[in-house]
């Protein structure tokens, strides 16, 4: 037995099966005292077809996934570098082609056309609603957090606070809160958009100015605290927010500007176009910023703060800017959510939500706008698809186990994300190399000092 286990391929196979078995047992339909392994329900005999077996017997599916995963690992370990070299050779021509400006603009234009036509292609009400509530909102949040985490390299674990403030601003200016709106004059949620964006940016500055002097872990903890404080405030300040009852009766947005009249109603598609417009706007602003003087300052701070200071960059100023600019899209996302669903509850703005957005950014590729957008769309679409009906006994409460597993796999095989930002990818490789080098330094220079 021990001899058999000494063989790496076999050992890996057993480990993969063990890990998958643990995930299988931890997820799936909930068990009870009498039947703790409810996930195993069903039998071979019930399903005549092969695919039927897959659909109801989760352990068959998981065993299959384990074998596939093991196969991929085995092939990759022996052929990985060679495959990568060949792939790169093949991709030289297409890469050159896609890196030219007209092609890029063409691809972007085509994507925009697809995005505009999408609600007409997808007719199902479920997906039309999901496109706004679950995908567009998450894309907005992910691209905003990407400015903070990806561009400026600041770990923000309380990003949900800006989303909450955006949503509550919509409730406030429309008179849906106990707190009377400005000048006692209730506005339409459409006008809440600029107010919310301005307010979250100011909040970003107020929070950032004192706390962004902190670095790394300390900043993460302060932002985590900030996220919690804002949620608890919304929950406890009954006189201002109606507390845990949430805010109901937030009206739908509408425009009455001279000849321009439009009322957003109950249907999700108009909200989709509103969201799409702002997504495009934020994407343009963020990518212009990325390649501007400000973006270069962010890169410099991320790479070496002391060096950045020595060339005359004020780190605090640019970090606060990243915080405020990144918050803007969350402010709009908050208004969108509040005015579309008409109600908001403090309990929906949790730490888990912040982390969820962070996962989208990391999976998509920190610092890469295209990657973050793709990551958010992909993950949210798959999640929604799983939520919509029983697929393979998936339970919504298990989402984070699967996302966690996915995150681990990604960190091993593609640490810089789906579409890595070129610079971030190199930074990750470099820090790994640094780690090895510093170890080598210890070995080589140990007796020198």
């Amino acid at each position, binding site marked *: 037995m021990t001899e058999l286990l000494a063989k790496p391929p076999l050992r890996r196979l057993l480990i993969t099966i063990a890990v998958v078995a643990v995930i299988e047992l931890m997820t799936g339909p909930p068990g009870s005292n009498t039947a703790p392994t409810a996930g195993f329900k069903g039998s071979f005999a019930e399903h005549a077809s092969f695919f039927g077996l897959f659909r109801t017997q989760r352990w068959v599916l998981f065993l299959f996934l384990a074998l596939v995963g093991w196969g991929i690992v085995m092939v990759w370990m022996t052929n990985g570098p060679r495959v990568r070299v060949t792939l790169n050779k093949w991709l030289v021509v297409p890469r050159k082609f896609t890196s030219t400006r007209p092609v890029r603009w063409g691809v972007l234009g085509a994507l925009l056309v697809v995005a505009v036509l999408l609600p007409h292609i997808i007719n199902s009400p479920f997906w039309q609603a999901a496109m706004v509530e679950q995908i567009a909102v998450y894309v907005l949040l992910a691209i905003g957090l990407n400015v903070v985490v990806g561009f400026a390299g600041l770990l923000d674990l309380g990003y949900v606070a800006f989303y909450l403030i955006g949503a509550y601003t919509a409730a406030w200016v429309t008179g849906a809160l106990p707190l009377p709106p400005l000048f006692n004059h209730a506005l339409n949620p459409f006008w809440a958009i600029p107010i919310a964006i301005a307010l979250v940016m100011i909040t970003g500055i107020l929070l950032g100015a004192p706390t962004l002097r902190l670095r790394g872990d300390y900043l993460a903890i302060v932002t985590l605290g900030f996220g919690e404080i804002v949620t608890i405030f919304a929950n406890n300040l009954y006189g201002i927010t109606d507390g845990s009852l949430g805010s109901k009766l937030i009206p739908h947005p509408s425009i009455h500007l001279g000849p321009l009249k439009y009322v957003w109603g109950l249907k999700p598609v108009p909200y989709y176009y509103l969201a799409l417009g702002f997504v495009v706007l934020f994407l343009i602003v963020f990518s212009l910023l990325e390649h501007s003087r400000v973006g270069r300052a962010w890169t410099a701070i991320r790479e070496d703060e002391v060096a950045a200071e020595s060339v005359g960059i004020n*780190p605090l100023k640019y970090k606060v800017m990243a915080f405020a600019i990144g918050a803007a899209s969350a402010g709009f996302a908050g208004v969108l959510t509040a005015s579309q669903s008409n109600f908001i509850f403090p309990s929906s703005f949790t730490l888990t939500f912040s982390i969820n957005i962070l996962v989208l950014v990391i999976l998509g590729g920190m610092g890469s706008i295209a990657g973050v957008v793709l990551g958010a769309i992909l993950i949210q679409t798959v999640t929604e698809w799983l939520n919509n009906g029983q697929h393979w006994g998936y339970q919504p409460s298990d989402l984070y186990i699967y996302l966690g597993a996915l995150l681990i796999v990604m960190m091993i095989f593609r640490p810089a994300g789906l579409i890595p930002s070129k610079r971030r990818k190199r930074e990750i490789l470099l820090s790994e190399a640094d780690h090895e080098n510093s170890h080598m330094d210890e070995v080589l220079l140990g007796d020198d000092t």
Partner: protein
Amino acid sequence: MLDVKDAVVRYGAITALHGISFNVEQGEIVALLGANGAGKSTTLRMLSGLHAPASGQILFEGEDVTRTKAHEFSKLGISHVPEGRRIFPQMSVEENLEMGAFNRRGSTSDDRDHMYETFPILKERRKQLGANLSGGEQQMLAIARALMARPRLLLLDEPSMGLAPMIVETIFGIIGEIRTAGTTVLVVEQNASQALRLADRGYVMENGRIVFGDLAKNLLHDERVRAVYLGESVES
């Protein structure tokens, strides 16, 4: 040009600089010498705004810069080449140079070309990433980056650290050229013999104090300096 008066620097309860005073005149190269832990790097950290003095005063061209923040120095005309070079590893040589001119308006391509003339190796490597340069090239890049801000005073922290003797020779040669071109230089060094052959004047630091200062040529022949820093005797 630069006057430091009675500067005291503390790290918490520990006093790193016990009231040091020295000055740098326009057009000079001044070397600050001392062993490990003598307070050289702390002095430079203080001069570049990374650590404010607890008491004392720093004047640059008559202006009080004691409480000036690190990022404001490049605008004033003081550029700092930090210890350990600290170039931006994931930026190309060219991008690194452009970052050096971050606070300058208008075109900087003339300055860049000038840097490529001074450091021909950087021109060869201009598309390469900072991380992929050799130690000597990184040091040249760090100096060139600092010069891109057109400083009147250049602060160099241990430019010879970790470099081969031949490259140290080249770098010190370039520091001489920089002075000839009109930039005043304050260099902190452990490599005393190299630094003193280049500098006009030198100060020797020990335990957070400046123990003596003199013309470089006198220091080179000073017995105390020879004994401790030039390794002519084993006593310490």
